[in-house]
């Protein structure tokens, strides 16, 4: 599972920063393992023009958040809201064991919550 690509994102997470005036922001925690993420988005005309995250957690959750933000930059809010868990797992690129799927999905879950909130809606259902 700890392939080079994943370890690279873990050791050198992209967009690991705090934004000045984000239009969307969300903190989420995975209570079973204590992973914590805060995601921020600068949005213009419903396009994501800057992203940032801070947090701590296991290699999977950090690397996955880093990969996700790299992917989201430049996309529209609706594109992101249309992303599925399968999309996210594909992005991570290595198969996760059942116990670790939640770690891999924490980033997407947090992003969707942030962007739903931005649109004035709440996310229905589980991640």
């Amino acid at each position, binding site marked *: *599972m*700890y392939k080079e690509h994943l*370890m690279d994102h873990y*050791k050198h997470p992209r967009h690991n920063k705090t934004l000045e005036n984000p239009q969307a922001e969300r903190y989420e925690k995975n209570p*079973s*393992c*204590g*992973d914590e993420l805060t995601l921020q988005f600068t949005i213009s005309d419903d396009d994501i023009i800057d992203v940032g995250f801070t947090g701590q*957690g*296991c*290699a*999977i959750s950090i690397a996955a958040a880093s990969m996700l933000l790299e992917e989201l930059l430049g996309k529209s809010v609706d594109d992101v809201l249309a992303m599925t868990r399968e999309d996210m797992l594909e992005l991570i690129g290595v198969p996760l*064991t059942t*116990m*670790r799927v939640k*770690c891999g999905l924490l980033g997407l879950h947090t992003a969707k919550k942030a962007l739903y909130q931005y649109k004035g809606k709440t996310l229905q259902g589980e991640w």
Partner: protein
Amino acid sequence: MKEQFPVLETVTYLDTAATAQKPLRVLQAQTAFALTRYANVHRGLYQLAEAATKTYEGTRQVAASFLGAEKKEIVFTKGTTEAMNLLAHTLPIKKGDRIITTVLDHHSTFVPFQQLAQRVKAEFIVLPLAKDGSLDMKAAQKEIKKGCAVLATTHLSNVTGEVLDVKQLAEWVHKQKGLIVIDGAQAAAHLKVNVKELGVDAYAFSGHKVYGPTGIGVLYIQEKLITTLPPYQFGGEMIDQVTIKKTTFANPPARFEAGTPPIIEAAGLMEALRFVAEHRDLIAKEEDLVEYAQKRLKALPVTIIGPENKTGCISFTLEKIHPHDVAQFLDEQGVAIRAGHHCTQPLHDSLGIPASNRISFGVYNDKEDIDVCIDALKKCVEVFDV
């Protein structure tokens, strides 16, 4: 020893605190019973039922001897968790009473007694750890002295590996006319337990942690207490007489065994308890393994949880690497260790960490297993580059 455990050819198993692997002889005893002597117990008049009942009640005798108790003081449960729930539902605890537990306790003790306290509006007191990571016995004495209707705690911590001074706690509790009930889930696999010497009122353990089957456990309740407790569940086997108007209940232990019990598992448990009793020498050697493992671990960037003196298990965190990553990485190297809160969230909260890693030992482990594990941990530190 390892040839009794074929699965050990495929994995370095260091998670016996979660559940022990089963020796062939236990599985064979279970199978032989199921194939030749199986029927429902306490019911049929035919010979097969008689044979099955003999084995089931025979296991009760073996379990009693295992704990230094009397047969009539032994109740079969599903495991330690059910035993603690049974006690939390039947002990005479009332509003305003003081229920004491510790921050070390497994959720299977902690939660039933916390919920009991909330149900009857009793006080719920959680004893803290001392600076060295052992149970704070000064705080224990002080809190017990203020009054104690029941103290529920563990004999051997499944995280820190500390053996609590249960005998001392029992003395303090009994001075207050309270009851002491002990979770022996870990202790039963590592210590020779005598409930009368310990002076406890109840003592529980699970079959699957003493090299026996899942689905069966043993609960000792001392004779005076067991005869006063009301039923926990209702149904077949636990009754004396049932009429449309009312039901009277069987005497203990049958009173606490409603429904068809785990019969085949009882046959396996008998063999497992014999297996443990026959291997006291090997079990004593686990102490050396713990010491060796602790020494080797300390050469790595680790923080070890709890006091220096440990039995059965060592929990730790590797600096800057999440415990889940450590366990997952080790799994990829063929080493099975635990990561998580080990059903002790209050303990992990008090340490300010969400999770830890744990290695734990059984009769089948040797130094080589520890060397393999340490090598894998070293590799993990390298790959994660901390």
